[in-house]
C-alpha cells in the first residue's frame, strides 16, 4: 500500500488541473485503484480520457496484451487451454445457480429465456457454451480484435449466431442503455484486469434485473497466488502468457465481498478452484487462495447504494450535476 500511496499523491497533483469538475470522483477512484508505476503512462495523455467516458474500467495496457494474443483464442490446446478447460467448472456453476432461481426450464435448453451479459468475453470461450444452453447472451469486450474473432467463430453455427450478440465496448458504455435488462452478468477472469473495481461492480448492479445474479471468477491476492500464479505460471511454465496478470490487481474474496455487499449484491457462494497443469483439468476446492468463483445476487428490494457511489455514473452530464455533492467516502 505504501508504494501506491506515493502514486496517489503524485496523481493527485497532476489530475485536478485537467479534471476540475470531477475532482471528487477522481480522488475517490484513485483510492480504489491499485496502480503500478506503469499506470503513469496512461495518465500522460489525459486528453484521450476527456473525449471518451470520463471514467473507465478498461486498462489500455491490458488491451495491448490481449491484442497480441487475439488470434489464439480458439486453439483448445494452445495458450488459452486452461481457460477452455475452466469451462468444465464455470459453466455448471453458472447453469446450476441460475436453474435454482428459475421455476421452470425447457429440457435441452436449461437457460432458455434468460438474458446473460458476458463482460470481457474475449474470444467467446464462455459465451458460446452459455448460448448453447439456450440463453440469449450479449458478449462485450473492449478489444475489437477479440470481438472480431468471437464473431467469426460463432458465425458458422446458425443456432449460436442467433442467440449470441457481440459488441466492442466496455461495461460502463452500455450501462445507460441496458439498465435492469439482464438476468445474469458473468465477469469471468475480468476483475483482475480492470482499473476501477468499484465502478465495475456498480455498473454490473445497474444492468442486472432485481434478483439477478452476478458471477465472478478471479484470482486471489495471496503470496501463493504470486508464487504460483505469476512466477510459476507465467515465468517458469509459460502456462499463461507473460504480462497477462499483475499481482497488485488480484482481488481477495474478502475485498470483493466488501465491494459487493454495500453495492446491493449479496454474496451467496464463494468456492475455490485449483488447476492441475499436468492433467489440464480444474477442480473445485475449499481453498480459495488461488482461483475462486463467486456468485452474488442483486437484492430484489430497493436497497439503494450510498449516495457517493451514485455519483460515479459513467455519464458526463450526471457527473457535472453531482459534482457539487462532495461527500468523499474514504474506504480502503
Amino acid at each position, binding site marked *: 500500500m505504501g508504494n501506491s500511496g506515493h502514486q496517489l499523491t503524485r496523481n493527485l497533483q497532476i489530475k485536478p488541473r485537467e479534471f476540475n469538475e470531477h475532482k471528487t470522483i477522481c480522488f475517490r477512484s484513485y483510492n480504489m485503484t491499485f496502480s503500478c508505476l506503469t499506470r503513469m503512462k496512461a495518465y500522460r495523455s489525459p486528453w484521450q480520457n476527456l473525449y471518451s467516458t470520463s471514467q473507465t474500467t478498461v486498462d489500455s495496457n491490458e488491451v495491448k496484451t490481449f491484442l497480441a494474443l487475439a*488470434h489464439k483464442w*480458439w*486453439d*483448445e490446446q*494452445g495458450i488459452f487451454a486452461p481457460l*477452455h*478447460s475452466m*469451462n*468444465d467448472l464455470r*459453466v*455448471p456453476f453458472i*447453469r446450476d445457480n441460475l436453474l435454482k432461481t428459475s421455476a421452470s426450464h*425447457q*429440457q*435441452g*435448453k*436449461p437457460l432458455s429465456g434468460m438474458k446473460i451479459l458476458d463482460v470481457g468475453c474475449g474470444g467467446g470461450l464462455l459465451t*458460446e*457454451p*452459455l*448460448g*448453447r*444452453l*439456450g440463453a440469449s447472451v450479449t458478449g462485450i469486450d473492449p478489444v475489437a480484435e477479440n470481438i472480431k*474473432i468471437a464473431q*467469426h*467463430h460463432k*458465425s*458458422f*453455427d*446458425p443456432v449460436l449466431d442467433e442467440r449470441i450478440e457481440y459488441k466492442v465496448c466496455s461495461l460502463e458504455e452500455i450501462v445507460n442503455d441496458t439498465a435492469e435488462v439482464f438476468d445474469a452478468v458473468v465477469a469471468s477472469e475480468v476483475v483482475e484486469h480492470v482499473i476501477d473495481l468499484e465502478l465495475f461492480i456498480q455498473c454490473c448492479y445497474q444492468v442486472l434485473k432485481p434478483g439477478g445474479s452476478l458471477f465472478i471468477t478471479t484470482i486471489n491476492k495471496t503470496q501463493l497466488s504470486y508464487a504460483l500464479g505469476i512466477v510459476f505460471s507465467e515465468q517458469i511454465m509459460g502456462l499463461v502468457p507473460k504480462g497477462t496478470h499483475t499481482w497488485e490487481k488480484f482481488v481477495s474474496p474478502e475485498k470483493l465481498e466488501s465491494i459487493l455487499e454495500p453495492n446491493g449484491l449479496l454474496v451467496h457462494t464463494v468456492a475455490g478452484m485449483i488447476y492441475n497443469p499436468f492433467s489440464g483439468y480444474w477442480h473445485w476446492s475449499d481453498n480459495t487462495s488461488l482461483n475462486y468463483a463467486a456468485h452474488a445476487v442483486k437484492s430484489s428490494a430497493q436497497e439503494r447504494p450510498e449516495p457517493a457511489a451514485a455519483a460515479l455514473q459513467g455519464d458526463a452530464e450526471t457527473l457535472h450535476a453531482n459534482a457539487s455533492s462532495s461527500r468523499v467516502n474514504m474506504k480502503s
Partner: protein
Amino acid sequence: MAARTGSMTGLLCVRWWSSAPLAVGRLSLAACRRWAGSSADTVYDVVVSGGGLVGAAMACALGHDIHFRDKKILLLEAGPKKVLEKLSDTYSNRVSSISPGSATLLSSFGAWDHICNMRCKAFRRMQVWDSCSEALIMFDRDNLDDMGYIVENDVIMCALTKQLEAVADRVRVLYRSKAVDYAWPAPFSMTDSSPWVQITLGDGSTLQTKLLIGADGHNSGVRRAAGIQNVSWTYDQSAVVATLHLSEATENNVAWQRFLPSGPIALLPLSDTLSSLVWSTSHDHAAELVSMGEEEFVDAINSAFWSDANHTDFVDSASTMLRYVVTLLKPTRVSARQLPPSIAKVDAKSRALFPLGLGHAAEYVRPRVALIGDAAHRVHPLAGQGVNMGFGDISSLVHHLSTAAFNGKDLGSMSHLAGYETDRQRHNTALLAATDLLKRLYSTNATPLVLLRTWGLQATNAVSPLKEQIMAFASK
C-alpha cells in the same frame, strides 16, 4: 460466405445433371430435397453413419436423451427401411445374445419393451465344454437371474425403428443414403473454412455436422476416410447359422457351446422347440455344411455335440485326476457334464454362412469423429460379445455426450471424446485379446495344449469368484 454458397449451388447443379441418367425414379424427389438445402447446408449436431443395430441404437439413445432435446441428429442408412407389420412365424437365422447390460441400454429408450412384446428368449445357464476332454465350465447365476437373452436381429431392428419414429422431431433418418465422401475441418486456424465435418452423400447432396459417429461396420468408410489405423486379420473360419428344431420340447433355457478342433459350435435357445445354431469352422467345411442335405446336416450337428471321438486316454486320466483334487478341496456341488438337446430337423432355407475375422481400430476418436460398434472392433462370435461391445460403446459415448451437452460444450471436442475412448478401449482390448486367445487355444488338438486348457477350464470352473468375475465382465 455468399461466394461459397454460390459456388456450392453451382456444383450441385453440375452434379445433378451428371447423375440424372442414374437416378431417374428418384429424380424429382431428390431435386426437391436438394434445392431446399442449397441455400445453406444444414448443420447437424450429430450424424450417425450406418443404420445397423449399433448405429440405429446410437441415434435412438441420443434422440431420447433429455439433454439432446434441442439438438439435430441424423442417421444415414444405405439400405431401405425395414418395416415389419407382422412378425413372421419362422425365426430369422441371425440372432444375437444380448447381455443384461445391453438390455438395460435398450430399455433406457423404450426399445426393450417392444422386443419383449415381440419375442425374445432368456437363458439362465451356459455350458461350455471341450471336445478333446471331459473338462467343462458351467456358468449360472445363483439367484436364477437371466444371464442373457437371445433375440433375432430383425426383432431388435424393428424395435429400434419404432423408437426412432417416436423421436422423429429430433432424429431424422435418411434411408438409401450412403455417405461417399467426407471432408474434415482444418485444424484450428483463422481461415474462412467451415469448422464442421462435411459429408457428401451418394446423390450429391452435402451436409455438415459437428460430430460424426461411424457405425458402419467392420469395413468402416468413416474409419478409412479418417485415416485411422486398423489392426485386423481374418480367421480361417466362417460361421454357419441355422434355425433348428429340437427333438422334443424342453424348458430350453441353457446356452450350449462345445469347442471342436475345427472351431466352436453353439446352440442358442430361441423357444421351447427351437434353437439357433452358430458353428464356426473352416471355410471348406462351412461351405460343405451349407450345401449338404438336411438330414446329413442334422446328423453332423448331433455328432458334433455328442461324439467323444476326440478324447484321448491320457487327457482323460489327467482331467479325472484334477477332478478328484478339486472334489477334495471343494467338496460342494460338482457340475457333471450335461448333454444338449438333440436336433430333429433344420428349418429349410435357414442355413447361411459369413466369414469371421478380428479387427481393432488404433484410435476410436479424432476431433469431431467417433467410432462405435464393429467399426471400432470386430470379434469372433465364440463369446457372444460382438453386439454387446457395441452397445457398451453406445452407453459410454451417450453418457459423455450427454454431460457435454448439459455443459454447453462443442460436441466434437476431443476433451470428452478422449474420455469415451479411454473407457472403451480398456474394456474392449481386454475382451478382444481374451476372445482371440481362447480361439487360438481351442483350435488345436495337440496334447500339451489340450492338457493345459483342460486343467485351466476345470480350475476356472472350480473357482466361483473367478467365474463370477468373468460373468460380470461379459454382462456389462
